[in-house]
């Protein structure tokens, strides 16, 4: 890259790193891995920067690289044992955050696609169509994943034991 392009890249990266770290963390559930993911995404972005910089919404492209990079990471054999492909039958007990609803362990039980859809739609606040574009699937598939992800969460919350979790579960039943 020429120096001007590189400055642009740095400016973009600096502005986006905090948000990328949060999204990456919600996707993978590990702060260190999140930073690794962000770093890999930024290297990939650097390689394509001249092209990406001309896009109307480079952020959407960056989100897509983040999701695909994370999913590549899930495919690594030494990580595979950490990925729960299905929700286990046993209830969730969250001991260290008794007064707060601990979402991360619940997210960890979701399949990668369901988790990604939740993060993109409810953390990044993207529309169904934007999410579909990033996930490279149809809007209908996004809706299905969202529906099932929320159902999975509900099922887990139904087994939850902390007062706040129970309260939220009750709340959910009313809505």
């Amino acid at each position, binding site marked *: 890259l020429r120096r001007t392009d590189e400055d642009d890249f740095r400016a973009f990266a600096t502005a986006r790193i905090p948000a990328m770290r949060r999204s990456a963390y919600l996707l993978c559930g590990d702060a260190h*891995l999140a930073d690794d993911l962000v770093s890999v995404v930024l290297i990939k972005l650097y390689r394509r920067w001249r092209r990406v910089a001309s896009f109307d919404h480079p952020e959407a492209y960056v989100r897509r690289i983040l999701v695909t990079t994370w999913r590549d990471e899930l495919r690594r054999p030494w990580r595979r044992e950490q990925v729960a492909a299905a929700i286990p039958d046993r209830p969730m007990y969250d001991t260290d955050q008794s007064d707060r609803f601990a979402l991360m362990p619940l997210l960890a039980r979701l399949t990668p696609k369901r988790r990604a859809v939740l993060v993109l739609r409810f953390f990044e606040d993207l529309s169904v169509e934007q999410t579909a574009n990033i996930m490279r699937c149809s809007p209908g598939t996004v809706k299905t994943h969202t529906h099932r992800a929320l159902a999975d969460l509900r099922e887990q919350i139904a087994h939850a034991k902390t007062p706040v979790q129970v309260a939220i579960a009750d709340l959910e039943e009313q809505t």
Partner: protein
Amino acid sequence: VNNDTLRQLLAESATDEALGPSRVNLDRIVVAGRRSLIMRRAAIGLVAVGVLGASLAVPLWVRGPTTAPQQVTIPAATTATDDPAHTGAPATTAELIEAWALELESGPTAPASSPGQTITVTVHSVLDGEPTEPGRFSVEREGLMLVDGGEFSIEQRDRFAQTGPTFLMPTAEWFSGLDTHPESLLQVIKAGGCWVPCANDYQVFGAIADLLRMGDITVPPTVRAGLMRVLGSLDGTTAYEATVDGRELWAIGFPEGPFTVLELYFDPATKRYTGSGALTVATTPDLPECTPRVIVSTDTHQNLDRSSVPEWCNSAIPLPQPVRNNYGFTQQALVTP
């Protein structure tokens, strides 16, 4: 779960406290990105293989024992189009290429192939004058596909199943049937050395570089000599003897824009490929009016506004002495299960 509740919970989960201090180092990313642009396809594999879980800045070049930025001189009159007929002048690129190619022809033969063989590639690099931790990755001997490159490996295997052996994914048998005449070799590279047919000399140079970086140990000496001649035929190539990290090497330079010359090194002692580098040959003007306004300044970097800087500030000013502070050496070992 109610949508708004979920939004709130997600936001509460990704707090600064949960994330801790950022370990994302933009300077290292930029350095890795620069390397990776130069070594494009090999870099995909390296990034895929090595970055996560290990160190972030996977060295894309290999490092020698000691190092400092090196000042180098390229003989002025050595371009591929020079007329070698006149006497008394320094050897031209064409003369050097032919002499070196003849030497390479007597290089070591590739070890016999056996099922399941892999090549372990160890890369010692110097990046911006700083030695880095050695990087290591493995490829399958037949097809040079990454052993553990995640999605990229799957992509490579699909590709191999579709196309069979190509310059991008060569096998021992494929090498043995190759016509090593530079013109036909060039056609083979253009057709199958890139993921889509190679579009220009820059991509041909990259295809040759990638093959040698990963699979030089499997390349028959006549093919290596043929590749040297193909390199010599590319527009803008220069050939010169270079001292890199104290080693006397044969260097093939290829311009990448006005600021950089990419280099491939061959070792006269082993008559094999040994590494690659990049020469900085020009810089932008260092004048007050070319200094951009600082938007943000932190400990590690600055964000600069270059929009107010005139366009001519991006023009290339040739350096009196080119600087080589990015280079590396590759070691390849065949592993037979």
